[in-house]
């Protein structure tokens, strides 16, 4: 498998997840070769490439720090072609495949020569809060000068400009036990839980299970090699029917009652992918119990020059070697304050990497470690530090500093491994609002009390080492097994908040948060400037606020801040962990719910007819309704004028299906209606209709609609299109809680009925031949009446009502016959030049009559009195919802906005809906606004524009002029009564 020429840093015989097949890939336009199983990071380093990105603020060259999803530095843009470009992906989790393409970001003109790096040279000018302080004034500079500058100079990858060509999936799932993380702890937990026979889900963010087992080839479990134990265990789990194993799946968030979001990456690693198959999938899992085995993240050491490419976590170097078969350099130095760091150095040494030196910040190094080092001929300097690093785009050496003697020594190396201890991963545990506590022994927070049925096992619980992980996982799943384990002792460590250095602090660059380019200096500055809360320090320095959310930096930051603030770490506290655990695409969060499936679009049974007819639609709530039916060459105004005229002259047909419908049934139906509506219902005759006005308890208009009484105990209630759900809720609420003594029930029947509205003088003539069982004569079927019978042989509830002022019928037929009846009527209506009209003409026709639209002419603060509808409010009823509120002082006060009509001085001016109204157009700005236009249209019937408006004290201002300042010109209009057309309603009486 070794190919020295192509992959000089590949180590034969190493690489637990690496196959034999060579994979060609491209990074920044250069072709490289990697091996099956490689990540972009491991493949690049196999080729000796460490420089993978430029830093956020100072554009400093950066390489990998970690080997997994915690990686803060190596962010690249993954390019699968048009519409499939993903910025800011961590090179350490990106799997290569034949033809893979990625590029570096935040550099110009190239990664190796980046002009923005002058930020680095002048970094003394870019301390914490620099942007806040510098770019404050003048305000006018923000848009044109500061913002573009910041956008150019600071930043990550570019947002994609094309629409996402990929699709995504989402599902719900359930299990009794969800185990997050398939390292030794997670696998041990699964092996125990599987025996219950209950549903188990085991997830891991990596392509392969094993976690730390993949980096520990010399360990043994129960007498066999760790790798063999892993293979054996995974086989057992694969064969178990009750276990679901998920790789490439990250638990991104932990929500109420054990509801977990899992983001599965399905296709990013598959070459030659066909479109249309979901790229990623969001699993929304409800788990009975959650076992978190997320492990721990190694902590960097904070020292001058710790961000140079080639400086990385010791465990990362160990993982690159053992998991991927890649040496991070031919020579390396280890800088550590924890025993565990030595494991990486020894593994590398055993693979022929020269460990030039081990620098231990502690005074004492355990004897057994010293012996092991001596065996390998490695020199250890204790009580020492690294004072600077050398190299430009790659580390070439370090300067070791021994504070007790003042000795300085330069050592060459290709890599510097650092180990500052370990931070248990508490992210998901904390999402669940479970508590944590500080553990002095490991200088880190560990889980305390659970807030859900959850447990942590292994390193994320602060239990380090292989045996502890296995035992912890087993125990979390209810087991009592004792594992025989052969492993290198995990050991202990010491935390160093300030590593000794002879260089003046102001001249050091000791990075805490690599991704946001925040240094130790920045934290100290923030504290000096008075930020004493850790949440404030975080926001001021931006530490922990980058895409990695401070996985490697938070604890270092906290300890540095605590020292500066002079409080204990516990007193300083910890910033909040928030989902998602790792960056997650919007696509995954949307799942299937994108494009056509983003939101329901409800269509009526006649929608298809309208579509064929070329209707232009508008959304009304989640319904789509035909707005107008343009003929060739017509714009909206022309079409609407024609539709209105045709309806008033002869016959218009309109789809009113979307009106909400509620059937109110029961012996107390009338009593209930009496309580819910302002109007009286008890005496309404069977077969008669009434306009109903509904108030909220606060006295404001809530909804309205025509109600027909079909029987003593049965009302057919209609509501506004958008108001149907809330009216149903409003009624159910009162019925179940306040009026529960009434025997009445509600059923939503909106979709039971297709509603065809016919309006115009010829409406009756059209339907007459189709009707059976209903006497249509005006005497026996007057305006505001309802009958049951048949139309076109189909049962119908026929309403004689009018929302246009013309003779009108609303034909209710069962939905799935709606289109057939519509088509039959339309065909027959041709003799009357029947004209389909849309919602726009409907609005004009009703406005000409002064009929209100709730939600357009009212806004939730309009009373029946304000709307001029006192006539609809019963004076006799002792109770109805909203009645008492009508006497509230504010509602009877003078000066309320009242609904009036407006006639513009210039008949051709159609005012803008929502335009403000003033009494005196010459007053200084800001003017006193006395109301606004609620409805405004061109009225073809009147040859004049019309408008309705809410105006303060409007009823008393009838005949007065008011002014509407609009763009470019102020218009004058006269206040009139809002009944513009046929005020006496004579047109309803066409025989």
């Amino acid at each position: 498998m070794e190919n020295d020429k192509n992959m000089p840093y590949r180590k034969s015989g190493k690489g637990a997840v690496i196959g034999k097949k060579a994979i060609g890939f491209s990074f920044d336009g250069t072709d490289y070769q990697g091996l099956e199983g490689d990540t972009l990071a491991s493949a690049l380093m196999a080729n000796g490439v460490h420089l993978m990105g430029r830093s956020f603020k100072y554009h400093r060259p950066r390489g990998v720090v970690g080997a997994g999803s915690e990686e803060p530095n190596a962010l690249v843009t993954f390019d699968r072609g048009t519409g499939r470009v993903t910025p800011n992906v961590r090179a350490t989790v990106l799997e290569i495949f034949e033809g893979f393409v990625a590029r570096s970001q935040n550099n110009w003109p190239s990664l190796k020569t980046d002009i923005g790096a002058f930020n680095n040279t002048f970094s003394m000018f870019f301390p914490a809060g620099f942007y806040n302080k510098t770019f404050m004034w003048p305000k006018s500079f923000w848009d044109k000068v500061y913002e573009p500058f910041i956008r150019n100079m600071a930043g990550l990858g570019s947002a994609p400009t094309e629409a996402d060509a990929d699709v995504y999936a989402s599902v719900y799932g359930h299990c009794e036990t969800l185990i997050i993380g398939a390292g030794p702890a997670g696998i041990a937990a699964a092996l125990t839980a599987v025996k219950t026979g209950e549903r188990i889900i085991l997830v891991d963010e990596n392509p392969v299970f094993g976690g730390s087992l993949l980096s520990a080839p010399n360990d043994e479990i129960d007498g066999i090699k760790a790798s063999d134990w892993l293979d054996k265990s995974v086989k057992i789990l694969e064969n178990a029917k009750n276990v679901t194993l998920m790789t490439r799946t990250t638990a991104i968030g932990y929500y109420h009652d054990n509801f977990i979001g899992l983001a599965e990456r399905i296709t990013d690693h598959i070459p030659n992918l066909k479109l249309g198959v979901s790229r990623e999938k969001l699993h929304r899992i409800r788990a009975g119990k959650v076992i978190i085995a997320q492990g721990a993240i190694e902590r960097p050491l904070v020292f001058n020059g710790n961000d140079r490419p080639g400086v990385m976590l010791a465990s990362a170097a160990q993982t690159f070697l053992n998991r991927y078969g890649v040496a991070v350099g031919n020579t390396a130095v280890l800088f550590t304050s924890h025993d565990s760091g030595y494991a990486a150095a020894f593994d590398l040494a055993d693979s022929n990497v020269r460990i030039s030196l081990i620098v231990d910040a502690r005074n004492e190094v355990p004897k057994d470690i010293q012996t092991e080092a001596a065996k390998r001929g490695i020199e250890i300097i204790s009580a020492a530090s690294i004072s600077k690093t050398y190299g430009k785009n790659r580390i070439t050496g370090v300067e070791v500093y021994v504070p007790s003697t003042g000795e300085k020594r330069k050592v060459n190396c290709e890599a510097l491994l650092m180990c500052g201890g370990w931070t248990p991963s508490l992210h998901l545990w904390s999402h669940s609002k479970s508590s944590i506590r500080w553990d002095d022994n490991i200088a880190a927070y560990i889980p305390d009390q659970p807030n859900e049925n959850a447990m942590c096992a292994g390193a994320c619980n602060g239990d380090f080492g292989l045996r502890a992980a296995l035992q912890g996982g087993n125990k979390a799943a209810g087991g009592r097994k004792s594992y025989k384990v052969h492993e290198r002792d995990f050991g202990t460590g010491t935390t160093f908040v300030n590593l000794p250095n002879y260089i003046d602090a102001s001249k050091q660059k000791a990075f805490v948060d690599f991704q946001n380019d925040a240094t130790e200096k920045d934290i100290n500055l923030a504290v000096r400037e008075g930020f004493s809360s850790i949440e404030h320090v975080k926001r001021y320095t931006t530490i922990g606020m980058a895409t990695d959310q401070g996985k490697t930096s938070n604890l270092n930051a906290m300890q540095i801040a605590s020292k500066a603030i002079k409080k204990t770490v516990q007193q300083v506290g910890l910033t909040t962990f928030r989902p998602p655990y790792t960056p997650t695409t919007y696509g995954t969060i949307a799942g299937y719910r994108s494009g056509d499936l983003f939101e329901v679009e409800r269509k009526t049974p006649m929608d298809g007819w309208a579509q064929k007819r070329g209707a232009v639609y508008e959304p009304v709530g989640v319904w789509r309704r035909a707005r107008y039916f343009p003929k060739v060459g017509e714009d909206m105004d022309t079409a609407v004028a024609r539709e209105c005229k045709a309806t008033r002259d002869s016959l218009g047909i309109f789809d009113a299906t979307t009106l909400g419908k509620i059937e109110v049934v029961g012996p107390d139906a009338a009593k209930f209606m009496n309580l819910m509506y302002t109007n009286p219902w008890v005496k309404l005759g069977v077969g008669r209709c009434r306009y109903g006005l509904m108030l909220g308890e606060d006295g404001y208009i809530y909804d309205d609609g025509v109600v027909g009484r079909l029987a003593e105990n049965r009302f057919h209630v209609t509501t506004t299109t958008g108001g149907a759900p809330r009216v149903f809720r409003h009624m159910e609420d009162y019925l179940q809680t306040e009026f529960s003594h009434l025997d009445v029930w509600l059923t939503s029947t909106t979709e039971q009925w297709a509603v065809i509205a016919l309006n115009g003088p010829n409406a009756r003539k059209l339907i007459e031949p189709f009707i059976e069982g209903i006497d249509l004569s005006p005497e026996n079927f007057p305006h505001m009446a309802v009958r049951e019978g048949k139309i076109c042989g189909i049962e119908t509830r026929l309403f004689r009502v009018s929302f246009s002022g013309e003779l009108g019928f609303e034909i209710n037929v069962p939905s799935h016959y709606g289109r057939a009846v519509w088509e039959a009527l339309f065909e027959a209506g041709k003799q009357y030049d029947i004209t389909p009209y849309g919602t726009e003409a409907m609005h004009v026709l009703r406005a000409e009559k002064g009929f209100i639209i709730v939600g357009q002419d009212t806004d939730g603060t309009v009373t029946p009195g304000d709307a001029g509808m006192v006539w609809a409010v019963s004076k006799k009823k002792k109770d109805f919802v909203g009645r008492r509120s009508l006497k509230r002082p504010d509602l009877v006060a003078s000066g309320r906005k009242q609904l009036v009509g407006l006639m513009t001085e210039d008949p051709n001016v159609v005012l803008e809906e929502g335009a403000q109204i003033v009494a005196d157009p010459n007053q200084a700005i800001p003017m006193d606004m006395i109301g606004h236009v609620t409805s405004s249209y061109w009225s073809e019937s009147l040859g004049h524009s019309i408008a309705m408006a809410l105006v303060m004290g409007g009823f008393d201002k009838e005949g007065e002029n008011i002014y509407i300042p609009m763009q470019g010109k102020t218009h004058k209009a006269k206040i009139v009564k809002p009944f513009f057309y046929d005020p006496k309603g004579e047109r309803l009486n066409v025989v």
Partner: protein
Amino acid sequence: MFEIHCPYCEEKKPEIEFAYAGEAHIVRETKADDLSDQEWAEFLFYRDNKRDDHHERWWHQHGCNMFFNAVRNTQTDKFVTTYKMGLNRPKINPSTNNIKAVQNGK
């Protein structure tokens, strides 16, 4: 997403089936005419906003269609219990909810 125990379905159902419906145990005044404007305003607009056990109404909108009452702790954001409409406020035994444990933890 919560799992909410519906006292009518006698099952835990996903929160997405439910809708919040305001504070519980606010009885509509039948003799509203006798109330002063201030008293009526208090009924209409004034609500508790306790950092404690909160009695509130939920509607099983996409389930059995029933309104019911719940006790939810606004600090822990956990449901303590749910009960049918019309029942009195239940007595909460402090030992049966884990409010204390969470407080101690933080």
